[in-house]
C-alpha cells in the first residue's frame, strides 16, 4: 500500500518540484492521449516517471535475487556479490571505460552505453566461472561456490585497481561514479529492458518457492522431498545472474538492497519463500524508491548517487531491527 503513495510523492520531488495535482493531471492527459507540452509535463514523463519506474523494478529485482541466494546458500548473509556478479560487472565496466574510453563514443543505442554492455558481460562471465569452478560430477558445492566467489572478487578487485592505476582523472571519476550506482541516467529504453527482466523473473520464480523452502533443510533433505536440486540450483543461479547483471549494467552498483531487504523481511514475516519473495520485492522497490527520491533532493540543485542513500537509509533500520530482535530472546 505504501508503494503507490511513495510513487506519487517521488514523482513530485526533484530540482523542479511538481505539485501533486499537476502530476495527476499530466498522467491522466498522457493516458487519454492528449499531449501536454508544458515543461513540467515533460520533466515528469521523460525524466521523473522512467526514473521512478526503474527504481521500483530494480529494487524489486535486487531484493528478490538477494532472498534467493540467501536461501540457496542457506546463509542469511549471502548477497549477489558472493557469486561474482558485482565484481565481474565492475571489471567489465572499468575495462570499457579505460580501454575504449579514448577510442570510441561510449554512448550508443539511445542511451544504452557500451559501459552497460561491458558490465553485463563481465557479471555474467564471472558468475558462470564461479559456477563452473564449484560444479563437479557430484553436483554443485555451495561452500566451494562461496569460496570461488571470494576468489573471483579478489581477482576482479586487483584488475580494477590495476586499471584505475593506469587511467586518467576523468576515467577514474567515471569508474567511481559508476561504482556508486545511480538512477539519474534513466530513460524509457532502460525501463523497457528492466520491465522485461522483472516480468521474466516474476513469471519464473513462483515455481521455485517450495524448492527453496525444502533447500533450507539441506540438499539431501530436499532431494528426499522430491526436489531436483541440481536443476533448481542451476536455474536459480542463472536467473539471479540475469537479474543482477542487468540491474548492475543499467544502474551501476547499488549495494545493500540485495543483502538487507530480504533479511529485514525475514525478521518480520519468517523464512517461507512463498511469502518472502513477493514481500522482498515490495520492500526492495520501496527502499530504492525512497532512497532515490532523497538522492534527488538532499543536496539541491545537485543530486547524490543512489547507492550511497540505500546504505544510509537501510543500515540504521536494519540495526534497529537487530536490536529489537535481540531483546526478544
Amino acid at each position: 500500500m505504501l508503494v503507490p503513495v511513495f510513487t506519487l510523492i517521488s514523482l513530485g520531488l526533484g530540482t523542479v518540484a511538481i505539485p501533486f495535482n499537476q502530476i495527476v493531471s499530466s498522467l491522466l492527459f498522457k493516458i487519454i492521449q492528449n499531449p501536454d507540452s508544458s515543461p513540467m509535463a515533460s520533466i515528469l514523463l521523460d525524466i521523473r516517471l522512467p526514473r521512478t519506474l526503474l527504481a521500483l523494478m530494480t529494487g524489486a529485482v535486487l531484493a528478490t535475487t538477494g532472498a534467493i541466494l540467501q536461501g540457496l546458500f542457506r546463509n542469511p548473509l549471502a548477497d549477489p556479490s558472493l557469486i561474482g556478479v558485482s565484481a565481474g560487472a565492475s571489471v567489465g565496466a572499468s575495462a570499457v571505460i579505460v580501454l575504449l574510453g579514448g577510442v570510441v563514443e561510449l554512448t550508443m543505442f539511445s542511451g544504452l552505453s557500451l559501459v552497460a554492455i561491458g558490465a553485463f558481460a563481465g557479471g555474467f562471465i564471472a558468475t558462470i566461472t564461479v559456477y563452473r569452478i564449484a560444479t563437479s560430477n557430484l553436483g554443485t558445492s555451495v561452500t566451494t561456490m562461496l569460496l570461488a566467489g571470494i576468489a573471483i572478487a579478489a581477482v576482479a578487485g586487483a584488475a580494477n585497481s590495476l586499471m584505475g592505476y593506469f587511467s586518467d582523472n576523468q576515467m577514474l571519476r567515471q569508474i567511481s561514479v559508476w561504482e556508486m550506482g545511480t538512477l539519474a541516467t534513466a530513460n524509457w529504453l532502460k525501463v523497457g529492458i528492466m520491465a522485461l527482466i522483472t516480468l521474466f523473473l516474476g513469471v519464473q520464480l513462483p515455481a521455485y518457492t517450495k524448492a527453496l523452502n525444502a533447500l533450507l533443510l539441506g540438499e539431501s533433505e530436499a532431494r528426499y522431498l522430491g526436489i531436483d536440486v541440481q536443476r533448481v540450483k542451476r536455474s536459480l543461479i542463472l536467473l539471479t545472474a540475469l537479474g543482477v547483471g542487468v540491474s548492475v549494467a543499467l544502474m551501476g552498483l547499488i549495494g545493500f538492497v540485495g543483502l538487507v531487504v530480504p533479511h529485514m523481511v525475514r525478521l518480520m514475516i519468517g523464512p517461507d519463500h512463498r511469502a518472502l519473495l513477493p514481500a522482498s520485492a515490495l520492500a526492495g522497490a520501496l527502499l530504492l524508491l525512497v532512497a532515490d527520491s532523497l538522492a534527488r533532493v538532499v543536496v539541491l540543485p545537485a543530486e547524490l548517487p543512489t547507492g550511497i542513500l540505500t546504505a544510509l537509509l537501510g543500515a540504521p533500520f536494519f540495526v534497529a531491527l537487530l536490536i529489537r530482535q535481540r531483546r526478544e530472546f
Partner: protein
Amino acid sequence: MALVAENISLHTAGFELLRHISLSIAPGKVTAVVGPNGAGKSSLLKVLTGDLKPTVGRVLLDDSDIGEWPLAERAKFLAVLPQHTGLNFPFTADEVVALGRIPHQTGYARDREIVHSALALVDASYLQKRLYTQMSGGEKQRVQLARVLAQIWEPSDFGQRFLVLDEPTSAFDLSHQQLTAEIAKRLAASGVSVLVVVHDLNLAARCADHLVILNSGLIAAEGSPEKVLSERLIREVFDVDAVISQHPVSRTPLVIT
C-alpha cells in the same frame, strides 16, 4: 514392492566404506542396523535411499534401479531422516513439518490436519508456533521426525511406504526413545517398511523384527534379535564384554554391559 541391495560396495578416496552387502528391506517389518562408529551405517542408508551411488552392485526399488526413479515420485512413499539437519532459518515447527507435504498435492486443509497429527504423535504439539532455531536438540529432532512421518502419512498409490531413520533418538530422553520405538513398531504393523540406525542395542532389540550388525563395512550378522545377539558377537564387533539376558516384561534380549 521391496527395497533390495544386491552385492553393493562403496569406495571413496581409497577407503572401502561398504563391502559386498546384500540386504532386503521387508514390508511391514522394522529393520534395525547397529554397529560401532565408522562401521558404515550412515553410508549404507545413503546408498539404500539413492543419495549415494554404490561403486559396485545396485539397489532395486520395485525391480528398477533406485537412481532411475523420478525424485518427485519416490518422495511420495520414501521418507528419510538424516542424522543431522542443518536448518538455521527461523521456521515454526508447523512450517518445518509442512515441508514434508511438498511431494503431495493433498491441499492446504488436509496438509494442516496431517501436520498437527504428526506433531501430536511425537509429543510436540506444544512446539507448533515456536521457532525451530530456538528449540532444544531433542525438540528439533522430534520436529524433524514429525516432518518425515508427515511425508508418508497416507498410503501411497504405489502401495508400499518406506521410512528410513538415521539415529533418530540420539538427542532423546528415555521416554521419547521409547515413544520413537513404539511409533516405528506401529507403522510397521500398518505395512510400512521401517529401516532405522540406532546406537542403543537394547532399543534395537526391543523394536526390531530384523537386526543387521554392521562392522567395518561388512554385515557381521543378521536375523531376529534373539538369534543374532550373542556375547561372542558383541565382543567381536564392539570389543566389549557383555552378558545377554532377557527383558523380564517384553521377553526381548537384554544386553548388559
